[in-house]
């Protein structure tokens, strides 16, 4: 028995040693790199919140850190709500949130005595994906889309679907509808869109991060956890349909439906159609110093012949840093440079991850103005 105790003690002590060894090693490393490069201290920027832009931001971080070895950017998930709170409490330097902060909650941020700035950083799209063997192209009108998710259209070869897809070989099989089981911003965007295009949906179901799916009661609804869960079920379930983010559809090579937009055209989510949609709702994006009047509705179902209707925005929150309230002078410089890089170089296609679309110039300009407002104190 004593042996075990000795072994345990040794183990614990070694751990301590390893840990302390790492500290000194780290300091050694730091001084080494510092002498090689600019004699500047390592700066750590923390960003917390929405997981939707994760893939994109990780890519930016990777590229940016190679260009600026002194700046390290720590990414943390936790969701949009957590991102707003962590930013408000000063736990994160840059907050990330998909639904923008509205006017009502904006006051909470102003109460800190510093000016928060909010602007879109990149956009994606919520897409409708399907798994029907032999069918690769599918057009869905607003009416059909709503009715499928309401459960009113039961079979793939329903007249309403055939009517807009005359050439597709649609089987007489029941439609399995897959949705999210967890609370999700993707669900919020998708159901908000459905309430906009279908009166019946808004009366019967409504919009939210979690909704009561009518198809569940009919035995044709299946729930998956997270976007990966939904995609995994879709791939295994024939004759199913689901909504997910564009990046998952691209990474998993899933067929994507063309949706009817406000102008009555069928549009697939592509870089152009998403950019057009963003440019067409630009007037609803307020100045970075103000909260949004309405969070999602105005950004969805964009006008214009080539606009994809379900565009997903994601926003950054950063402080103006009045009187150096939130950031040290070195950190301000690093943050400004990083954000400037995101809004210029970061928007170029070689720095974008699949499924994400850069902002149109006039929208990126909102962010650019915000970054220039940040005070170096």
């Amino acid at each position: 028995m004593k042996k075990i105790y000795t072994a345990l003690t040794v183990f614990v002590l070694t751990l301590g040693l390893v840990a302390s060894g790492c500290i000194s090693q780290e300091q050694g490393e730091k001084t080494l790199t510092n002498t090689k490069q600019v004699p500047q201290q390592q700066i750590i920027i923390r960003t917390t919140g929405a997981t939707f832009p994760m893939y994109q931001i990780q890519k930016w971080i990777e590229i940016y850190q190679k260009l600026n070895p002194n700046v390290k950017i720590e990414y943390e998930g936790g969701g949009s709500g957590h991102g707003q709170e962590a930013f408000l409490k000063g736990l994160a330097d840059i907050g990330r949130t998909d639904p923008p902060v509205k006017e009502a909650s904006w006051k909470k941020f102003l109460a800190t005595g510093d000016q928060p700035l909010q602007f879109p950083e990149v956009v994606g799209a919520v897409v409708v994906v399907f798994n029907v063997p032999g069918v690769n192209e599918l057009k869905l009108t607003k009416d059909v889309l709503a009715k499928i998710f309401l459960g009113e259209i039961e079979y793939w070869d329903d007249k309403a679907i055939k009517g807009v897809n005359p050439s597709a070989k649609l089987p007489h099989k029941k439609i399995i509808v897959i949705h999210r089981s967890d609370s999700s911003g993707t669900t919020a965007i998708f159901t908000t869109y459905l309430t906009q295009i279908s009166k019946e949906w808004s009366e019967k179901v409504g919009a939210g991060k979690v909704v009561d799916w009518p198809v569940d009661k009919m035995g044709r609804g299946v729930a998956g956890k997270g976007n990966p869960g939904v995609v995994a079920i879709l791939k295994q379930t024939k004759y199913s349909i689901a909504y997910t983010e564009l990046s998952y559809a691209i990474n998993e090579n899933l067929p994507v439906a063309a949706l009817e937009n406000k102008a009555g055209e069928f549009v697939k989510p592509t870089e152009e159609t998403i950019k057009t949609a963003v440019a067409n709702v630009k007037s609803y994006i307020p100045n970075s110093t103000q909260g949004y009047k309405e969070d999602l509705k105005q950004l969805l179902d964009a006008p214009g012949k080539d606009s994809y209707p379900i565009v997903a925005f994601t926003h950054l929150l950063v402080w103006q840093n009045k009187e150096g309230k939130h950031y040290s002078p070195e950190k301000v410089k690093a943050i400004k440079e990083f954000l400037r890089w995101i809004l210029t170089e970061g928007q170029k296609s070689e720095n974008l991850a699949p499924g994400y679309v850069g902002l149109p110039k006039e929208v990126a300009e909102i962010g650019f103005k915000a970054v220039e407002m940040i005070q170096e104190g």
Partner: protein
Amino acid sequence: MSGYNVRKLKEKLFLFLIGALTVLMFSPLFHIIYSVFNNGIHVILSRRITFITGRLSDGGIGPAIIGTFILVFLASLIGLPVAFLVGVYAYEYPESTLGKATKSLLQIMLEFPTILVGVFIMQMLVVPMGTYSALAGALSLAIIMMPYVAVYTHEAMRQIPFEYRDAAFSLGLTRVKAVFRVLVPMAKRGILTGVLIGIAKVAGETAPLLFTVGGSYQTYQIGITKPVGAIPLLIYTLIQSPAKEHHEMAWGASLILLLIFLGIFIPVRLSLREVKV
């Protein structure tokens, strides 16, 4: 004679059934170990030492490994002594109001949703401190670890026959000496099992760390008031990504976590078996 055969047959059938159910029960465990090895090993082999020591941008999970060790170490430091004493107390004073309350509170704590612990620590410690920290993470892990260790300590002590207690007192030992010199050493097997289960439990926890440690994957930051990373938290973040390369890293990280877990668990478990009571 035929009655005998039927009984024999029944026995065989029963044994077979029990055997089959046992295999069924453990098959998920082996499947998990198998799939984690299968998916994780090539990630580690292809990146070799970078995977263990590198930062996230180099394709490694070094800071997360160190973070997990720091968190578990600190949580044990905070939680184990308290939990041990609470367990002993609940055993020594089973009839007192406080002892009874302790026992039922421990049961509640066992079932307490771990995410709430994280939220609680965030409000109590992280927000006032103004930063995520290893300390906050370790504290929430300690809260989760404590009831396990205390309940196991309590149960292990209860299994010692009462005569040993009598014997200890008859030798003229005081109550403290009787408990800590005679009874605790006799129950150490059960207590150590509890300690191990507690450590293993918190080494794989994600929820209580979500709002407390902040995460640190690009830099090695060491210090109890600085944010740290943790392997389970990193896995959780990585699997939410649509990217294949992130999923691969998550498999590799899972394998490392599994190895750490087995590396602590198996040797101690084996050496415990040799102990003679």
